[in-house]
C-alpha cells in the first residue's frame, strides 16, 4: 500500500467528529480526506473522495449508518467501514457487521479503540472493541478479563484483593474515596460482576492466584 491511509469521517455530532480528527491526526501516515454528517452524502462523498476507511456513526440523518454501510459496500466494495457508535446493543453490532462493517467501536472507548481498529482494518482484520466483543460473546472471556482494565483499575482491583477498604485504597492512590467508588463501578461493569461483594470475592481470588503464580 502506498501513500497515507485515507479516512472519511461520518458523524453528525461535530464536537465528536473534531475529536476524532484530532485523534487520527496523531497518527503519522493517516489523513482525513472528507467528513460528513449525513448518511446519504457519505455514500456520494466516498465515490469521489476515495477513502480507504470510513468511520461510520450509526444514528446519521438522511440515511442511517447501517444502510449507508450496505450502500457503500455495494458502490465501493474496497472501502473498509469502522462503526463508531454510541449504540452498545448486540443487534446494532450484528446488523452493522452484516451490512459490511469490518470493525465496531463504541464512542466512549474511541480514544484508544479507534486507533486499534484502524490498525487492524488496514491489515484487513476484523476488530471489535473489548466491550463489543463481550457483548457478542455474552460475557467477558477469562483471558481478556483483566486485559480490559486500565492500569489504575487493575491497581484498585489488586488493593481490594489485598483486603483494603475503599478509603484505604483512595489514600494509597492519592485520590478521593468517591473516585475509588467510580473505579469499582467501572470494574464491576467491565467484568460483569453483579455486586461489590462479588467484586471483592473476585479480587481476593485473583490476588491469591497471582501469589500462587509467583510461588
Amino acid at each position, binding site marked *: 500500500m502506498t501513500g497515507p491511509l485515507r479516512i472519511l469521517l461520518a*458523524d453528525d*455530532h461535530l*464536537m*465528536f467528529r*473534531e*475529536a*476524532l480528527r*484530532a*485523534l487520527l491526526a*496523531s497518527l503519522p501516515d493517516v489523513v482525513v480526506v472528507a467528513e460528513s454528517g449525513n448518511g446519504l452524502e457519505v455514500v456520494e462523498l466516498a465515490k469521489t473522495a476515495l477513502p480507504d476507511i470510513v468511520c461510520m456513526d450509526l*444514528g446519521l440523518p438522511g440515511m442511517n449508518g447501517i444502510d449507508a454501510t450496505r450502500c457503500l459496500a455495494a458502490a465501493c466494495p474496497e472501502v473498509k467501514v469502522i462503526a463508531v457508535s*454510541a*449504540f*452498545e*446493543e*448486540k*443487534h*446494532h453490532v450484528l446488523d452493522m457487521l452484516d451490512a459490511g462493517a469490518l470493525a465496531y467501536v463504541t*464512542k*466512549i*472507548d*474511541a*480514544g*484508544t479503540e*479507534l486507533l486499534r481498529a484502524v490498525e487492524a482494518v488496514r491489515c484487513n482484520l476484523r476488530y471489535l472493541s473489548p466491550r463489543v466483543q463481550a457483548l457478542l460473546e*455474552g460475557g467477558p472471556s477469562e483471558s481478556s478479563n483483566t486485559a480490559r482494565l*486500565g*492500569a*489504575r*483499575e487493575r491497581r484498585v482491583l489488586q488493593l481490594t484483593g489485598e483486603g483494603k477498604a475503599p478509603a484505604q485504597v483512595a489514600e494509597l*492512590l*492519592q*485520590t478521593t474515596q468517591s*473516585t475509588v467508588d*467510580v*473505579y469499582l*463501578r*467501572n470494574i464491576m*461493569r467491565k467484568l*460483569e460482576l*453483579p455486586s461489590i461483594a462479588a467484586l471483592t470475592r473476585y479480587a481476593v481470588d485473583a490476588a491469591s492466584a497471582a501469589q500462587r503464580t509467583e510461588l
Partner: protein
Amino acid sequence: MKDVRPTRVLVIDDDARGRRLLVAMVEAAGHLALEAGDGAQALEMARQNPPDAILLDILMPGADGYAVARALKEDPLTRPIPIMMVTALSDRESRLRGLEAGAEEFVSKPVDRLELGARLRNLVKLKRYGDELLRRTEETNVLLSHLPDAVIEIDSCSMVRKANAAAQRIFGYTPEELVGCDVNRLMPEPVRSEHLSHVGRYLRSGDSNIIGVSREVTGLHKDGRLLSLELRIAEYRAHGERYFIGILRDIAERKRIEHERDSGLRRIVSLMRHAGDWIFIFDADDRIIDVSDSCQAAYGYTRQEFFGLRFPELCTPASRAACKSTFDRLRVARSLSYQATHCRKDGVEFAVHVGATMIEVDEARYFQAIVHDISESERHRLAMERQLAIASNRLGELSRHLVEAQEDARRRLSGELHDRTSPNLAAIQVNLGILTAALPSSIGDDLVTRMEDIRALIEDTDTSIREVCADLRSPVLDYAGLREAMVRYAEVYSKRSGVVVTVDCVNGYQRVKPALESLLFRIFQEALTNTLKHAKASAVAVALDTRASSVALTISDDGVGFDPDRVGAVPSKPGMGLLNMGEMAELAGGRMVLSSGPGRGTRIEVRIQA
C-alpha cells in the same frame, strides 16, 4: 249383575194331580218349584221364605184362591210377590175378582206349558224390577236422612214434595209439616216475592243461571230467625212434570269466621289507613283486599279499583315476571324487601321499595306490603352513576393522554441523552486521550493519574447515562422489537440480580404496533422489578404470543407469592409509571389477570387486542 240363583216359584193347588202337572211345567221352564196343598200352608211358606212368584189355583176348599191372594197382598212381607192365578174359568167375572184380590197375572186351564213359561218369566222380571226399585228407594232415603245439607224437592208450583231430616234441623219443620206446603214459607221477604218471579222466569225462558249454581240466600226458620244458607238447585223431569231439588247448607258458622277475620283485618288496616305510607293488604292469591288512603293518590286508582287488582299487577308489565318469582319467595321467607318498578293507572312508572310481610289472621294468610317511592333517590343515583361514568371516562382519557405524554417525554429525554450528552462525553473522552498522549513525560505521575481518574469518571457517567436511557426507553425496542428488547433487558437484569429469566415466543414472533410494544415492555419491566423487590424468586419465565388475535404476555416466577385478596389493602406504589400494570392493560383495551398464593409464585397474564 246376573242373578244366578234359580227362580223359586210356589205352586198352590189342593188337587195333587193338578199341582204335580203345574210343578212339572214350572220346572220344565227352568225354575225351582215349591208346593203347598192349601192356603194356610202357602201363607206360612211365603212368609218364611218369600218366593219369586206364586202360582195360585182359584178353586180350593176352605180359603179359595181369592182369599189367599188377599191375605198375601195384605202382609207387607209377601206383598211384593207377584201372583199368577190359574183358573178353569176364563170368564171376565173371575178375572176381575182376581185383580181385586191382588193377582198380577192369569193363566187358563187347561194350562199351556209354553204360555205358562212365558208369563212366569215376565212376572219374575217384574218382581226383580220391583225389588231393585225398593232397594234404591231405601238407599236414597238413607242417604237423604244422613245428609248434613237440607234437601227439599218441589214441583213446578213450588209445592214441597219431599224434605229430609237435615231440612228439619235447619228450618225447624218436620218433613210432614213441609210436604204439601208452598216452599216460600221457608223464605223471608223480599226473597219470597223474588222466588216466585225467579221460578216463573225460569219456567218461561229456561234461563239456567239458577240450576247447578250455588249462591248465598237468606232463609226463614220456623221460629222466625233468618238463616245464612248456600243454595244449589237441581232439576229433573218425570211424566211430563218438572221437579226441583234444592240443596241447602247452613253457612252461618262460615260467615261468622269470615266476618271475624274481616274485622281482624280491618283493625289492622284501620291502624295504617291514615299513615302517609302506601300500605297494601292482599290475600294468598295476591288479590288486594285493602289499601291505605294515600295509595289512591299515589297510584290513581280508587279503593274499589284496587280491589279488582292483584298486587303484582301494580308492577310494570316488564317487571311482572320477576315480581311474581319474588312473591313465590315471600311465601317461604314470610318477609322480604325488594325494589321494583310500579306503574300508575295513567301509565307513569316509578321506582319503589317494597317491604312485604306475611300476616296470619285466624289461620288465614295475608300479606302486608309497605311501599316507598324511591324514584327520586333512584333518579339521583342514576345521575350520579352517569356523572361517575363521565368522570371515569375523562379520567381514562386523561390517563391515556398522560401515558402518551410520558412516553413521549421519555423518548425525547432518552434521545437527547443518547444523541447529545453521550457523544459529548465521548468527545471529551477522546480529547482527554489526545491530551494525555501529548503530555510531556516530565509532567509527573500525579497529573497522569489524575487524568486517568477523570477518564474513569467520564466512563462511569457514560454508563449511568446509558442505564438511564435504557430505563427511559429501550433503544432495542424501537430498533429490533419487543422480543429482542425483552431478551436484552432480561440479560442485563439476570446479571444484576442473579435471577434467571427466560423469554419464550409462542408460535414465533411478529412485531406489533409500537405503542402496544412499549406498553407491554413497561409491564414486563414493572413485573421484573416487582419480582426483584418482593418475590425472592430464582427464575422468571416470560412467554409472549403475538400470533393470536390478542397479544398475550405471561410472566411467572417461582417466588414466595402472596395473597391476591390482600393487594387492595396495601396501596401499591406506581412502579414504572403513573399507572400500575392492570391499569395500563385496561387503558389499552386489554386486561390483566394476576394469580398468586403464598408459596405458589406469582403469575401475571396480560391480554391486549393487537
